[in-house]
């Protein structure tokens, strides 16, 4: 329990240990830790920035999408309108064409009817003439009756 020279030895040892820690251990570790701290802080800041940028980009994308949707809706509406117009125009044209065709056909039919009537009349005249010739034969003066019959034909 007595104090002796060990005290001095231990003091020297202790002093050397303190000096060693102070010179060769502590600064290196503290520096490394400070450096890591700043690295982590930088990383966190970068992450924060990235996050912010992502939010902005998302916002922009949303806006863009919105605009595009609007545009698309406009385009669809326009094309719908245009299609309606085209269909209407086509319908009109078709109706006109139909009308025109109908009129032409009717005209043609009328013409043909007229022609047929003409031919029929002529035929009736000749049949009547033949019949009259057969009935009346010699005693009829062909020239005199020709005139009467022509008048009759005129009445048809």
């Amino acid at each position, binding site marked *: *329990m*007595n*104090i*002796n*020279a*060990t*005290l*001095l*030895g*231990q*003091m020297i*040892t*202790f*002093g050397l*240990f*303190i000096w*060693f*820690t*102070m010179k*060769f*251990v*502590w600064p*290196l*570790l*503290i*520096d*490394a*830790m400070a*450096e*890591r701290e700043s*690295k982590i802080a930088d990383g966190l800041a970068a992450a924060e920035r990235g996050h912010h940028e992502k939010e902005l980009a998302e916002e922009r994308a949303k806006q863009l999408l919105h605009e595009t949707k609007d545009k698309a809706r406009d385009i669809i509406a326009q094309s719908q309108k245009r299609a309606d117009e085209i269909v209407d125009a086509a319908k009109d044209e078709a109706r006109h064409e139909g009308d025109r065709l109908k009129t032409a056909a009717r005209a043609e039919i009328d013409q043909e009817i007229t022609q047929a009537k003409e031919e029929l009349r002529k035929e009736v005249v000749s049949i009547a003439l033949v019949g009259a010739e057969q009935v009346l034969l010699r005693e009829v003066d062909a020239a005199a009756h020709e005139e009467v019959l022509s008048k009759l034909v005129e009445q048809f």
Partner: protein
Amino acid sequence: MSAEGPANASEYIVHHLTNLTVGEGFWTFNLDTLFISITLGSIALALFRIAAKNATAGVPGKLQNFVELMVVFVDTQVKDSFHGRSALIAPLGLTIFIWVFLMNFMDLLPVDLLPVVAGWMGVPYLRVVPTTDLNLTFAMSITVFLLMIFYSIKIKGAVGFAKELLFHPFGKWLLPVNLILKLVEELAKPISLALRLFGNLYAGELIFILIALLPWWLQFSLGLPWAIFHILIITLQAFIFMMLTIVYLSMAHEDH
């Protein structure tokens, strides 16, 4: 029981508490204290040096992680109680904590383990726990005390330090009283520092030795709780020594 087989209980105890010495009178060296404390300190510092040398700012390895944990622990304590700038206090605190903790930790080894091994190698005495040696605890506390005086003079100047000794707390008319009070106050610091650590560890070791005197089948019933309790004690004592050193040194830095 030790290899030589001591004659009785008190001889066994005394054997365990006797240092291995060389020299005579004041010039006696407690070889066991010196050897064990230097070995432990060197191992710890070597480990710390390896960690510090390989320290990277990147992802730390296991050793670096552990060492950094200690560094941060000490650094936090220092920052909490010392508000100046000093390259010394934090490393000093770290050295104290690690070293004292390791020396205290020898207390948790079975009391007979190292003495018996030493006995086989022809070493008659071995006191395993260096912190149960007053020489060691006083060496540390006196070193701290010298640092306190050194920093007091460095920060306040010799005159300032003298003024603090002479004129506080009662002003210049009670100068002798001031001086005596101040001397007692200052001297109490290293003495209490050294005796606290010594007393705790000496008592702890003594109880371990007493437990070792019990029959072998009974030893665990007392040894286990005491050892578990002692894990707390050795850490706490290392922490207190470090903490008080930091506080004393920051007081030395303060200007009145």
